[in-house]
């Protein structure tokens, strides 16, 4: 770590972006000093979880070393500082997603829990037999199973927006799918398999016209695109800190105040209560109503540092970098005639999660092989089994990029794919 830090200091601390230099950014991430099977780590699994910059680790260390206490209700200095750190990140998140109110920002464990809260609390109170719930065929299990279960419990019908052969949403019959019986439309802004960026603005408009609410699964979009949830008029947004440089164990549910206020909490305990007697209880106000028990205080503090790091880089710059790198990767992969890439071919329409298949080598064998070259990719259904089946395969290999990835990383991947053909004797 020492020499890493020294390099960092020599190169001037926090990144300022005039030109976006992933090689420079890599230096902020201690994990890139490690090797895998004797090779430098090439991390292409950021859609699963991202690596963490030193400043995030330092914030955790600082939190536990100097401020650690339980939040709220505490009158001593540590408790005050811990509460301030926790609530400061709430405010930062509110800004980050377009300037919403801090009380509209609820800390959860992850995106999955955020979506579950809406499906359970809002869903069970508002969705009835004969209603419709609309999702898409490209949803992650986190934005599929909660709605499947809600439809089972309520008798509402679960409808899917289909996808085209190109991996885009098929909006040709959208007016039939989202109809006046539709209570909520829940969809991902960016697919974690196809990379597809969905036209959420358009869908939100259609849904709202039909009187339906919209939940955006932002697990893949918020880390990679500038997302202004206020401009989008989405009713709910869910995402996870660990996919955007932040720590594990903390996620966000954003909801419009008017809806959150009417919703019942789903977990009961300390913090979320205003008054309890032996026979009655009154909930606390927003946002604490939804935050039962001791929260992940250190996680919130560190997530604040991650957001600051991203803001210093600038979400526009991040998108531009990823667009370029995705274009480059698609080009390199297209040149390999034994590789089939899924999802949109136009880099403007997608992010940098790229699922592909080798004509002969099974994704698991490929991932194991690439790992011995130090290249981390993921193989499997990426928690989107129905989509995977739809693609006509049982699993895919996925390479996914982030701010620290370089064209060099992509070159290594392409070389690795070629080598795999040789190793498994398909050439």
């Amino acid at each position, binding site marked *: 770590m020492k020499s890493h830090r020294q390099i960092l200091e020599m190169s001037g601390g926090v990144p300022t972006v005039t030109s976006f230099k992933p090689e420079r950014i890599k230096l902020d991430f201690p994990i890139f000093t490690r090797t895998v099977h004797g090779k430098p780590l090439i991390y292409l699994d950021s859609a699963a979880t991202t690596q963490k910059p030193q400043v995030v680790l330092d914030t955790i260390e600082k939190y536990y070393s100097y401020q650690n206490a339980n939040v*709220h*209700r*505490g*009158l001593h200095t540590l*408790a*005050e500082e811990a*509460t*301030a750190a926790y609530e400061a990140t709430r405010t930062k998140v509110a800004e980050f997603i377009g300037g919403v109110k801090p009380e509209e920002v609820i800390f959860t464990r992850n995106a999955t829990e955020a979506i579950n809260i809406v499906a359970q609390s809002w869903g069970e109170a508002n969705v009835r037999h004969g209603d419709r719930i609309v999702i898409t065929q490209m949803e992650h299990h986190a934005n599929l199973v909660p709605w499947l279960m809600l439809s089972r419990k309520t008798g509402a019908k679960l409808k899917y927006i289909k996808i085209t052969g190109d991996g885009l949403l098929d909006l040709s019959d959208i007016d039939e799918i989202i109809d006046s019986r539709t209570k909520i439309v829940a969809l991902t802004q960016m697919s974690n398999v196809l990379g597809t960026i969905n036209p959420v603005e358009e869908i939100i408009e259609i849904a709202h016209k039909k009187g339906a609410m919209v939940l955006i699964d932002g697990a893949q979009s918020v880390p990679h695109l500038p997302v202004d949830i206020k401009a989008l008029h989405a009713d709910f947004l869910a995402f996870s800190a660990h996919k955007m440089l932040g720590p594990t164990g903390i996620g966000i549910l954003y909801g419009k105040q008017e809806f959150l206020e009417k919703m019942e909490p789903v977990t009961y305990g300390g913090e979320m*209560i*205003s*008054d309890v007697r032996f026979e009655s209880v*009154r909930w*606390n*106000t927003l946002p604490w109503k939804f935050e039962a028990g001791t929260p992940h205080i250190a996680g919130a503090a560190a997530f604040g540092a991650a957001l600051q790091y991203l803001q210093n880089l600038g979400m526009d710059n991040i998108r531009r970098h990823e667009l370029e790198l995705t274009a480059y990767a698609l080009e390199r992969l297209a040149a390999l005639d034994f590789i089939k890439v899924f999802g949109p071919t136009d880099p403007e329409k997608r992010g940098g999660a790229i699922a592909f298949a080798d004509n002969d080598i099974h994704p698991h064998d490929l991932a194991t092989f690439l790992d011995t070259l130090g290249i981390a990719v993921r193989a499997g259904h990426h928690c989107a089994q129905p989509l995977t089946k739809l693609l006509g395969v049982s699993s895919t290999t996925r390479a996914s990029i982030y701010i620290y990835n370089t064209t060099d990383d992509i070159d290594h991947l392409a070389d690795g794919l070629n080598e795999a053909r040789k190793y498994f004797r398909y050439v």
Partner: protein
Amino acid sequence: MSDDLNNLYRDILMEHYKFPRGRKKLEHADIHNEGQNPSCGDELEMELQLDGDKIKDIYVSCVGCAVSVASGSMLADTIKGKTLAEVKKIAAVIRGMLKGEDVPDNIDLGDLESLRGVKKFPVRIKCALLSWTTLIDALAAREQGAEIRTSTTE
């Protein structure tokens, strides 16, 4: 002791705490409200008797810490005899001051000046706010002809 602490527990605040004003029950009340700081357990009862648009008499009873009791006592002292409009203005100024805003030059705070020390203790601000929030909510409810049950500062 630390300056901040002395600034919080000024003599005048402690005097109001130990000998709070407005503790005499009213024969008849025009406005009634209760306040609560659930996380502390502080509870407050407030009654106002009006004479036209003037506060004729006030009853404030607070079970709580020095800051919340003293703040309620000063409130009683201050608003007695004032018009509703004046009271609303003072309440807004005090609320602003506790939240860190500047106090307009033309306002004489009297004893309330001593609440300034609370600012340095963020978690105690809601103690000082309790009586003022209870008052403001009660007046707002009255204007709108709404019923009110309990105010809280959280």
